[in-house]
């Protein structure tokens, strides 16, 4: 039993109170601690990835209680991948926050940031359904604080909506967990998988109800239509870097669907059949359409980026829905890409917003300062989000298209993905030309150009690093997809996970 597995939860859990209690008056110290903590998380995640690759899935028994009774954390390839992705995105965001001075505009940013990471990491690692709920709550309560960072009436109001919606979602989660416990008598995910497979005939209806409730909860987190209403206002009104960090939060929903859909409710399971796939597929197509049409129709840059995030979740769920290894590998590649791309787009939008004062897409605006560099960064992020060559969005969409080709209605899915990509390109192009090109055509009063041009080298470096990672993901697509293929094969063989948690006898 390796103690490395609990470190991604313990490190931020220790660091955050230290920042609040010991460094509250010293922003520089807070920044150093936050960056060091995030770097540490990255190193731990890299080690866990290596462990998962070489040693296979490992369980960590808290308090050394035997598996179905105590609480377990499980590190397998999928968990380690998500941890690494979260750490990388967090590092980009924290550097951007320091560079752009967002952490000056309110208190306790870095502490909340570390608590958020603790919740996200815990959700990826836990092998216990009830602890998944607990970690969801931790990441949510930190996200409430981050969302209203720097205050403002509109932001607080959107924050209340976000909290109310997610509290209702949490209640639903508890109803689902209660039903699962009533049916199976366990909440350990590996044990659940075993019990669900040998469920007596009469209990199947209740198990199905619990399954549907659970998928609805994950759909709320993953912003799947018709549960996406909380996302646009929240992401558009949250501080830019916080919205970028939230790109990983929707992926927590996707991760949970993938985990439960392969482990507890595998396709063809006697109790639940293909119910998860049947629910996800139409929702995914609608999400894709709603998101990309929203990109075209948005009247502000922030909303446009938020709808782009919804659209990318649609593509992601579309690739998850078939629940077969090749599609899952494509989904994981697209998941990595879309997290980084959505994060970069939110950061680019924040750079624009900081220089224009607001993010409305109206006419008659002065050109922004440093428009050339920011325009180039926005262009690169938009290319990535839309899934155009040469960046990894194109590779990701290609993999997804290839994976859903054999599905029933495969051609309709192709139509949905390709059509919405076109709409997204139009929307992103329209917004880019309105912000970066049209102002130069309009006659400007003298001196309008001299809007404040804050020197923020670190912010540009952070965004550039994010885009560089997308380029790296494109160049290394071969090895990455190979590793992801093995990951998908692993999660589609639940016996491996069950064996790691319950021991060979239990599986």
């Amino acid at each position, binding site marked *: 039993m390796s103690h490395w597995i609990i470190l991604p939860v313990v490190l931020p859990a220790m660091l955050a109170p230290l920042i609040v209690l010991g460094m509250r008056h010293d922003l520089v110290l807070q920044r150093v601690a936050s960056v060091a903590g995030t770097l540490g998380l990255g190193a731990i995640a890299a080690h866990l990835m290596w462990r998962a690759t070489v040693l296979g899935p490992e369980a960590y028994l808290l308090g050394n209680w035997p598996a179905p009774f105590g609480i377990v954390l499980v590190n397998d390839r999928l968990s380690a991948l998500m941890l690494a992705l979260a750490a990388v995105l967090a590092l980009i965001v924290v550097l951007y926050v320091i560079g752009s001075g967002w952490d000056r505009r309110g208190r306790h940013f870095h502490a909340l940031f570390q608590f958020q990471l603790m919740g996200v990491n815990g959700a990826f690692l836990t092998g216990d359904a009830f602890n998944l709920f607990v970690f969801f709550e931790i990441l949510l309560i930190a996200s409430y604080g981050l969302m209203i960072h720097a205050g403002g*009436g*509109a932001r607080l109001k959107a924050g*209340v909506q976000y909290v*109310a919606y997610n*509290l209702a979602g949490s209640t639903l989660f*508890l*109803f689902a967990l209660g039903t699962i416990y009533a049916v199976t008598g366990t909440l350990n995910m590996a044990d659940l998988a075993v019990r669900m497979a040998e469920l007596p005939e009469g209990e199947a209806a209740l198990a199905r109800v619990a399954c549907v409730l659970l998928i609805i909860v994950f759909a709320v987190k993953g912003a799947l239509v018709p549960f996406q209403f909380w996302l646009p*206002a929240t992401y*558009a009104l949250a501080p830019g870097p916080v919205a970028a960090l939230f790109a990983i939060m929707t992926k927590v929903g996707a991760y949970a669907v993938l985990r439960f859909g392969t482990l507890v409710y595998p396709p063809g399971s006697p109790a639940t059949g293909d119910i998860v796939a049947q629910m996800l597929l139409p929702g995914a197509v609608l999400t894709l359409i709603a998101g990309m049409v929203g990109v075209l129709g948005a009247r*502000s840059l922030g909303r446009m980026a938020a709808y782009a995030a919804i659209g990318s979740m649609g593509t992601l769920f579309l690739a998850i829905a078939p629940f077969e290894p090749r599609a899952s590998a494509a989904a994981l590649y697209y998941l990595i890409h879309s997290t980084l791309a959505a994060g970069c787009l939110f950061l680019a939008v924040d750079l624009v917003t900081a220089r224009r004062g607001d993010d409305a897409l109206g006419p008659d605006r002065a050109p922004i300062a440093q428009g050339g560099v920011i325009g180039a960064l926005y262009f690169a992020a938009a290319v990535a989000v839309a899934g155009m060559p040469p960046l990894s969005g194109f590779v990701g969409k290609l993999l997804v298209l290839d994976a859903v080709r054999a599905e029933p209605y495969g051609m309709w899915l192709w139509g949905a993905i390709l059509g919405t990509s076109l709409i997204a390109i139009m929307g992103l192009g329209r917004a880019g030309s309105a912000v970066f090109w049209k102002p130069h055509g309009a006659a400007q009063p003298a001196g309008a150009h001299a809007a404040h041009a804050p020197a923020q080298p670190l912010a540009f470096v952070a965004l550039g690093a994010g885009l560089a990672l997308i380029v790296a993901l494109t160049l290394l697509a071969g090895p990455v997809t190979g590793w992801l293929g093995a990951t998908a094969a692993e999660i589609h063989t639940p016996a491996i996970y069950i064996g790691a948690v319950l021991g060979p006898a239990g599986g």
Partner: protein
Amino acid sequence: MELLVASAIGVMTASGIYLILRLRAFPVILGLSMLTYAVNTFLFVTGRLVVNRPPILSPEAAGYTDPLPQALVLTAIVISFGMTAVTVMMALGAFLETGDDRIEMTGEDEGEDEGTAGDGARAPEDAR
């Protein structure tokens, strides 16, 4: 007893949902509280309803009641308590900033500072 508990959960859930749909901060918070009461009771009975039995295995006792849901309920209560406190603070902040306790977003662009003046002017009658 099953009927009593089940209908209590149902009534609390229904009134919680009704209150959430009122779209004002105070009823929404009350509604969320009702929902958490309902789900806490629901969690409590997921170990089946058993009366007058110890929550541990014991050779003397005729049976036992499942202790795990009680632990789950305790966790759920603590979390929902904390969440309710956060919601109250945020709703209060939003009310003080905008002078309005409506949950839904109003105004053309949903959210830029526009409309603050108008909302402020409406505040006295809305606050009642």
